């Protein structure tokens, strides 16, 4: 009889167990069926340009970007000015093409100082989703050629061809902390020979950038470049920008307030001659329209 009781009990337990196993909901069963694959963070920033500088982002393979970038400003002490903030205008026309998902070539022409520039951008490391230690790293190499002096930005005459060329190397490091907040740090090295011999030829700088997404299509962005060994012959300031990025389908619109007149990396990082305030001549209004075309079907 005692034996019987044990059997009954054990069977009951078994029954209970088998019932338990089947009471798991179907959705819970499915959750365990997801394969473990590495997912990469998407859209740390919305564009390949953060505000005035580059972001870690590259477009996917076969994407062509047409960039129209502008800076408007007023001349100081211009009492006859008929315009609101557009006594002067610097326009940059640029193209970017993504050869692979990670590698982009680009170039452009700037009306201010008549600068031509070109660059290569390679996305070395992509941030992995749900990983606390993962970062995105992009390498950026830039070269520019200046043809015209401007009193606003000049460091001397440009007779020697070496003084017309400049090279910028950047390591862009960024992390998307939350869906809203992304931060970027950019160690920068600029190689340029200026007409004045007291200036350093190798300049080191550190860029800081961030975005805060306030709405699904709108984010606030800011950038600041700290220069470790600035030019000696003229007074320079760190380039700063505060702006709004608004993406509308294949068009990214960027509006910014900045103290940098140039849109060329080596120029605005090392040679921003104005401090950031709202005085005429110091305040630059930036407007960029970046249009994306997918050439690959």
């Amino acid at each position: 009889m005692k034996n019987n009781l044990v059997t009954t009990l054990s069977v009951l337990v078994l029954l209970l167990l088998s019932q338990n196993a089947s009471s798991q909901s179907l959705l819970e069963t499915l959750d365990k069926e997801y394969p473990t694959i590495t997912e990469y963070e998407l859209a740390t920033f919305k564009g390949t340009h953060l505000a005035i500088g580059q972001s870690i982002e590259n477009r996917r393979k076969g994407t062509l970007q047409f960039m129209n970038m502008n800076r408007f400003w007023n001349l100081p002490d211009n009492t006859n000015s008929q315009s609101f903030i557009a006594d002067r205008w610097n326009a940059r026309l640029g193209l970017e093409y993504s050869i692979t998902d990670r590698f982009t070539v680009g170039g452009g022409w700037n009306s201010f100082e008549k600068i031509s520039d070109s660059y290569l951008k390679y996305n070395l490391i992509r941030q992995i989703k749900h990983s606390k230690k993962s970062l995105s790293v992009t390498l950026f190499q830039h070269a520019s050629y200046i043809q015209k002096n401007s009193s606003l930005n000049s460091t001397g005459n440009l007779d020697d061809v070496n003084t017309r060329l400049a090279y910028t190397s950047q390591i862009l490091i960024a992390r998307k902390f939350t869906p809203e907040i992304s931060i970027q740090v950019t160690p920068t090295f600029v190689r340029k020979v200026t007409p004045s011999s007291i200036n350093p030829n190798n300049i080191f700088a550190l860029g800081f950038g961030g975005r805060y997404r306030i709405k699904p299509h709108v984010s606030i962005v800011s950038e600041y470049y700290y220069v470790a060994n600035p030019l000696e012959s003229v007074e320079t300031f760190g380039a700063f920008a505060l702006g709004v990025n608004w993406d509308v389908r294949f068009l990214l619109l960027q509006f910014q307030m900045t103290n940098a007149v140039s849109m060329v990396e080596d120029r605005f990082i090392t040679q921003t001659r104005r401090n950031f305030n709202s005085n005429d001549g110091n305040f630059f209004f930036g407007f960029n329209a970046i249009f994306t075309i997918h050439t690959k079907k």
Partner: protein
Amino acid sequence: MNKITSLLLLLILFTSFTTKPSKIITRQGQVSFFSYTTVENIEAKNNQVLSIVNLENNEIAISMLMNAFVFKKALMHEHFNESYIESDLYPKATFEGKIIDFDPTFKGDQTKIIKGKLSIRNITKNISIKTNITHKEDVFLISGKFDIVVQDFKINIPPIVAPNIAKTIATEFRFEYQPYEK
């Protein structure tokens, strides 16, 4: 007496094991959606949809990752995840429901209604979908079409792009189920 009890127990044991629900599963289910407007056509496809059916009580569950949808244009994929669906916050879309009057032993084609709850962006709506079910040997094929009203799931569409995105999104699915083994 002893013999009878043990026999009875054995029987209970046996039935408890045989009544263990038999399930069918797919790991490569297909879900695609289309937005047709006069301005622009948008379509995307997800080939990694999970679905399971319990043939004992005809319950069905579907689960998919939103970022597994593939678009023709890369930027559409980014905007879909980042700006519309917000897949960082709501990575999955799920469905839980029941196939009404479904007879799993019937071989061939049958048309049935699936009623249940569709969850996108943590918003749950009751829907019923007309489906075709084909049963051949061990394989079940369930397919169908239904419409999703964009506004139901509080998807933020800026007025400037409103003409490009349809108010209702046509959705299609096709699941080929195999017997489920743990």
